[in-house]
């Protein structure tokens, strides 16, 4: 019995910790505030419960098999029994699980991509060791480690890097994407609530990696327009800074 108890205890313990600490937190993927993060949260809990059932069944079965006397089953008979197990358990179960996963996963993944959208706001983010330079095209606004976005609006972050590879990540809004020297990658995120979110670098990028964080403030669309026009840099200055 000791074997069985301990695995059960482990799961219960984990569950209680999850309940105690809760799923919230400024970097929690389980406390989503945008469509991408929301879909991932659904995927996670679906996969979690499915895996829990599969593993508990398997562990109990295995424990029982180790403690029962199977008698002297002839090799032929055993082989036939096994063939059934393999077809249902070894091939059927994973195929079913994978298909189910992909049925949800592929469309979800597709919806997170930066498809052409006339409402999408473009923001350029250049990663440096160890800060984020954020620029707003057309207005010439430049921020460091700070991003302002309109709520309920798809935002396309155009990411690149000035030195090593970094990874841009706002866990409550969605997945991460690498900022790679020599190329530009595009990450689509959207915030559903007016709030201040926190982001960080996810790819190890040198000694201050742990502190390469930023803030992302989602404001109402009107406030955003206002903010843009308040802070826009006059055209002539933009040209100079571009040179």
């Amino acid at each position, binding site marked *: 019995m000791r074997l069985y108890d301990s695995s059960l205890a482990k799961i219960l313990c984990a569950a209680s910790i999850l309940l105690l600490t809760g799923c919230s937190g400024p970097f929690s993927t389980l406390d989503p505030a945008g469509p991408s993060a929301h879909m991932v949260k659904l*995927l996670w809990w679906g*996969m979690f419960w499915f895996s829990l059932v599969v593993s508990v069944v398997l*562990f109990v079965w295995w424990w029982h098999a180790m*403690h029962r006397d*199977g008698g002297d089953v002839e090799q032929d008979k055993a082989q036939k029994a*096994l063939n059934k197990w393999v077809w249902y358990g070894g091939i059927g179960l994973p195929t079913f699980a994978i298909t189910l996963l992909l049925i949800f996963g592929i469309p979800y993944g597709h919806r997170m991509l930066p498809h052409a959208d006339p409402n999408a706001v473009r923001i350029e983010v250049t990663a440096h060791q160890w800060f984020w330079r954020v620029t707003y095209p057309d207005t010439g606004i430049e921020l460091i480690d700070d991003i302002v976005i309109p709520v309920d609006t798809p935002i396309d972050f155009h990411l690149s890097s000035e030195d090593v590879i970094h990874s841009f990540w706002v866990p409550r809004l969605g*997945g991460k994407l690498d900022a790679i020297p*020599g190329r530009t990658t595009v990450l689509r995120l959207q915030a559903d609530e007016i709030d201040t979110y926190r982001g960080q670098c996810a*790819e190890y990028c040198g000694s201050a990696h742990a502190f390469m964080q930023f803030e992302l403030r989602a404001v109402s669309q009107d406030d955003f327009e206002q903010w843009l026009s308040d802070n826009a840099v006059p055209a002539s200055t933009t040209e100079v800074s571009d040179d």
Partner: protein
Amino acid sequence: MTNAEFQRRMAQVWDNLPGWGQLAAVNHTSIGRRFMVTGAIFFLIGGVMAMLMRTQLALPNQDIVPADVYSQLFTMHGTIMMFLFAIPILEGLAIYMIPKLIGARDLVFPRISSLGYYCYLFGGIIIMSSLFFGIAPDSGWFMYTPLSSAEFSPGPGSDFWLLGITFVEISAMAAGVELTVSILRSRAPGMTLSKMPIFCWYILAMALMIVFGFPPLILASILLELERAAGMPFFEVASGGDPILWQHLFWLFGHPEVYIIFLPAAAVISTIIPVFSKRPIIGYKWIVLSIILTAFISFGIWVHHMFTIGIPPLAQAFFSIASMLVAIPTAIQIFAWLATLWMGRPSFNLPMLWVFGFLIVFVCGGLTGVMLALVPFNWQVHDTHFVVAHLHYVLIGGMVYPLIAGIYYWLPHFSGRMPSLRLGRWGFWLTFIGMNATFFMMHLTGLLGMPRRVFTYEAGLGWDGLNLLSSVGGFIMTLGIGLVLLDIILHFKFGKKAEKNPWQADTLEWATGTPPVSYNFASIPNIESRHPLWDNPSLLESMSKNEHGLAEIRHGRRELLGTEVMSGKLTSIFHIPTHSWWPLFSALGLALVCVSLLVRVYPLAIVGCVLAAIFLLRWSWENGAHPSMAPPTKYDDPKIPLHSRTHDGPGLWGMVITLLADGALYLSLLFGWLYLWLVAPEWSMPSVSPLSIPLLFTAGLLLTILVVFYHMQIRYLKAGNDRGLERNLGLLGLMGVVHTAVLITLTTMAPLELQSSAHDAVIFVMLIYLIFHSGLGSVLTLMQALRVRLGYVGKTYPYEPIVLRPWWTYTLGIFWCSVATFVALPMLWGS
């Protein structure tokens, strides 16, 4: 000769030299043990580093370990565990076990075993020394460029990693080639492939995966080191390189590597379960099929480490599905194990406890693995502690647990004594509980957004309690591992003496004695079943007497039975070398190369290269009919020829398998070339090839004629005609020298901009690769001519030139392939 006298003579021929002479040992039992003990020491060092990291992360905002030390710790922890512990210790287990399981006295290339061990040991020491000097590599164990390149890691840390690991990898390649050939060609007669113990199938797959999987990393390491030391821009964007190429090459190795680690561990599980269930494994064929599937699929899933670099969605979907498919062969094996237990009469003891732990931990790791293969989920948790949790579940569950199960299972074999059940149980439970406490929490911290490789974190993010628990768990696990270690150490003194086959197992290793004799088996019977010791228990005694085949020792040679690949039919006797100092000297020469490249004293590196080449060629001299190898004696069996008197033998197979690895390296270079051409953002290609076309075709013509004539010469030789052999081989060798000289002229004449053009740098590497092959082929051919003169090669001993033939064929192949893809294709395509 009486049996006692026979056994004494056998021991005389097979035992290692005493005292310092142990350093010249080549015996697989000795080398296997050395690999395992060294691997265990590295495991403990890596473990201490993990404890330091867990101490630092136990509470938020700590500064026990500063950031720059922390980065060295996590880089070295990963590097040590992967390259200096997991792979070598499993290689050691395979080297120790394989001959005993297939009824052979040793591996087919014993000197290669020894070379491999020394390369591993010296490489490991070189890498560890960087930590001692406080200049260890610090850009993570997968060394992503440009962080690891000269600009962002100016110190020697990355060089230690690149040179040291490449040095260590010689041992993996050696084991890969040697294990493959041994399993295929030196099984006891009658042991068809389908009668092979299941363990051997796993190791065969692992060995072949090493052969194809390691070359991409070796190439990548060479390229990055060339970039760092000589400024050749393979991974630097501005000059036409691309940092993503490193990721492709690294993971092209890195993912197969996970299965290179898992397969031998699963081999242990598949060996132990039937023995303790007291019945044959159910689904032998299903398992073999799963092994082959795993090996194949594992080469098609490397991109799942790179889902966040922004590759096209269709490619992501492909690699996502392929990654999930690995679940199928794994699940098949799990059900085969389950069925064997279910329909057997399992007894529960120490090895089985670890098998049980394996299943729980490994299944958890497998399930999170499928989750990670789902692209949108991966985007969230990639590079977080969720991945750290997953990989430790898979590697500890899928490798450390089975390894400990295997150690306990074979402990009576290693020492002749039994372990202690009480201490062992405590060790298991503490390890199991501690390990789950440590890593289960990391799933949660990862989901709560904690990235990996941060040396500290602020309080109040929801990570505090979980991290503390992880750290406490880590120390409990350490205690558990400590008890296991104590148990193993104490058992050498206090363990109960083991019987001859203490677990009533079915496989031949238990007939070698506990502990085994140096020659494993005094005589080798025909094997008629998959479970020789169950179906014919008398073998346990009779194989240690001179009652079966190969019971002749008066000639003083170390001999194996050579058999056919599929049928296991006896073909010839493989004579193998006795103890030798050349492997140690060669490894020392290579170590000199490695160290002098590290300190950038290049003349010394050249001295090292020359020394290593001399030692290696001198080593190759002691072969065939050479007096120290297998000169004819009056005790030679007239019915079964020695392999050096035939057209086929282990060396030929070793050559072909080595060329497969070599081909994988070349394909990686081709991949790099095409990748940079098609993908690198700043790639530029000159409109005219920098290479002189007339010289190129002169070299090609010479090489083609050489290889055609070489083939003709071999045909004559095989037909028993050795007239003019010495002169012809000499002429062909000289022709090779001229061809190599033309290639060198071509290279020095070409206006290559090595430091500012990735295009030119790749061309240069390709040329060096060709020059190496042509040059070495020429030297070896000239040596053959000399050996004909001395009477070591000829009509009666036609073997060696036949072994050399595939080398020339391969050299010709890569030459024209290079002309086509590096010169002709760009000209046709335009730039």
